[in-house]
């Protein structure tokens, strides 16, 4: 079965054509830097067989990115799929596992799309486009929230009037679950432990979104994102944690326009809002390294790392008998400076990072901790697309049976 997996990040669209059940990748690629202008141009890196091509194209939205990707896939008839797997960020309280797309599930998705306004709507556009362009080929939605269904009530409850939380289904849902679960499974393999016994802190540090997950016995027990993917760490264009009174002040400032406040906090804040220079933290580190930055860029870099470090401390307090801290996704895998900054001076928690190993962590997965580090520091490449293909195949194969 050939499955095309679409993974909509907040500033990227990854796609892979994976043959199942042998898990062989036939083709794939990534549309990068979708949305606000960054220091480097938007591009699609497309792989097919041994060839890798880079196409520089302007992509102001995920719809434009999807159109460009479809052009590339239509050049070869061998890339015609048997099924689609879609990463959908928010499953609300409705979807606690992968779901086959139908009119009913689309209606339900429509009702909860406001919960992840910069993620669910583009993913839904891609689901609709697949239904239209490839009628009769099934689509499966795989939710980021599903892995976090095990977060206990004392960690998922907000201190709001109970009846309001009930009515509006307000609770911590948690996100990046597909990735956190995938890299944790890989880490368990590296450590030779059954996944059900793994205790870890997983750091999914993407170029767009980022979150940390506390994992006890293979189950998610907390995630830095909350009711929506806006809470938690400082992200590319998202503010992360914010005093509730400041959100209220902004609501007053924008004369009650929730759309304006949402746009400011989701798409013009975070690294972009703080630095005023770029939405990509790699650009900020690079400016500072070359002494081309300014006070704003230096502060952005410092605050970005500080927030991660504080949350690592929080989750290390939560997870007893910790086996490993895992770094993944674009920033977590590629930027040694980030791993070094957030793991330094953390001996209290049993973390000792090896600078040499960390600097040369190119072949993944790899352990970059010192020999006597009580807790392993692992860098693991995430593969959300493979995880989505596995769940898509499993659901469809189950249907056929």
């Amino acid at each position, binding site marked *: 079965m050939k499955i095309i997996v679409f993974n909509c990040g907040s500033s990227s669209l990854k796609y892979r054509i994976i043959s199942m059940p042998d898990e062989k990748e036939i083709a794939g690629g990534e549309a990068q830097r979708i949305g606000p202008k960054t220091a480097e141009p938007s591009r699609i890196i497309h792989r097919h067989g041994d060839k890798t091509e880079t196409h520089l194209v302007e992509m102001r939205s995920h719809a434009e990115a999807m159109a460009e990707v479809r052009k590339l896939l239509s050049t070869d008839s061998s890339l015609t799929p048997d099924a689609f797997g879609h990463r959908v960020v928010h499953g609300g309280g409705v979807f606690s596992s992968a779901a086959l797309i139908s009119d009913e599930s689309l209606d339900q998705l429509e009702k909860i799309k406001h919960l992840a306004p910069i993620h669910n709507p583009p993913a839904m556009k891609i689901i609709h486009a697949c239904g239209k362009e490839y009628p009769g080929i099934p689509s499966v939605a795989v939710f980021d929230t599903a892995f976090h269904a095990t977060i206990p009530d004392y*960690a998922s409850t907000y201190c709001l009037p109970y009846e309001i939380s009930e009515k509006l289904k307000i609770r911590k849902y948690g996100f990046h679950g597909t990735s956190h679960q995938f890299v944790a499974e890989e880490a368990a393999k590296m450590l030779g432990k059954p996944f059900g016994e793994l205790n870890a802190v997983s750091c999914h540090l993407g170029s767009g979104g980022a979150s940390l997950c506390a994992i006890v016995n293979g189950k998610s027990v907390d995630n830095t994102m909350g009711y929506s993917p806006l809470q938690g760490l400082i992200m590319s264009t998202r503010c992360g944690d914010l005093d509730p009174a*400041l959100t209220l002040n902004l609501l007053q400032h924008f004369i009650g326009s929730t759309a304006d406040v949402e746009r400011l906090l989701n798409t013009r804040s975070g690294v972009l*809002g703080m630095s005023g220079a770029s939405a990509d933290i790699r650009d900020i580190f690079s400016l500072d390294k070359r002494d081309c930055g300014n006070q704003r860029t230096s502060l952005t870099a410092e605050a970005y790392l500080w927030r991660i*470090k504080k949350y690592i401390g929080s989750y290390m307090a*939560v997870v007893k008998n910790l086996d490993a801290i895992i770094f993944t996704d674009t920033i977590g895998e590629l930027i040694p400076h980030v791993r070094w900054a957030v793991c330094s001076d953390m001996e209290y928690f049993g973390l000792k990072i090896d600078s040499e190993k960390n600097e040369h962590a190119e072949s993944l997965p790899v352990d970059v901790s010192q020999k006597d580090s009580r807790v392993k520091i692992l860098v693991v490449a995430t593969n959300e697309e493979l995880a989505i293909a596995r769940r898509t195949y499993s659901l469809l194969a189950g249907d056929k049976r």
Partner: protein
Amino acid sequence: MNIISISQNVSRLEFALFDKIGGAPLAEGELKNWMNQEIFKSIPEKITLLCGKTLRMKNRAFSADLICIRAPYGGEDFKSPELLTDKSIKKLRKIEHVAPMHIPALIELINLLKDYFRGTPISLVFETSFFTRLPEREYVYAVDPGLAGGIPLRRFGYHGIFHERAFEFSHDKDKGRSRVISICLEPIPEICAVKNGNPLMVTGGATPLEGLPGETTCGDIDPLIILSLSESLGWGPEEINKTLSRKSGIQGLTGKKMNFAGLFSSSDSNAVLAKNLFLYKILLATGSAIAAMGGVDAIVFSGRYHDLGKEIHTYLLSKLDLPVDNCEVLPDNLLRLTAEAGLLSLLKNK
């Protein structure tokens, strides 16, 4: 020496009379709805009456040697307690718009007391002074100031007087304790990491709404929840603010008016969830504080529910490798700490 210590809150004005530092208050009182015009005018007389009665003096015979006013917000210009001068009022006028609930009321209170207790020095003690030393990486929010319409985007923290004293208290006992976690158990609780006398991390934010949940305050929430409340319930900012600050926290979860002492002794299932949640938030903040300081040497509990510190410490010990013995309780209340800080500023000035 007669020291009047006054604590300014939005709806309550607390005051006490001290005759020496380190002793218990000779008299204590409080005025609710003190901003009501009639009540406001009577503040100096009520204080004089109580103090005079306590000291068995005829009303007018009572005179104060020092008045210390504790205020929740002083912005960045008040870096330590200071004796009132015309310059202090000018500095306060500059930040009126930033804290409209506190500063105008404080200025009026100062003028009232200045007129009544003519010639008596007044010392201003701000909760925020301690947090003027907070590192920028900790106090900044990831929002573009240019797009936020002039709204001050700075974390302060609101129990600076407790945290500063908590560090000194622990450090005085053992100079080796340079990394202290201060857990202030007031109705709006707060945790602060203090290293070498300076705050490195604090749970409170630009306002006391952020951070740990309180008896009626929500604590940390996803910003999008506020927008959902507005869209789904049609509420404006005032209604939402009322809900988040007066109907949330422990009260929101239990459906009852309950203080922290009641919460810790209740077996009601909603209260058990609220207590577990509160303990969990303390654990998260403690981990964060340890990461901020690269370790911990001591923990100090303070505030009106400091008695709960023992149970909380036991809970933390079950989760973390913490110093077992270096756990202290600072029993002093806020009015006494205010009097101490105010007196120090007077002595420094002399």
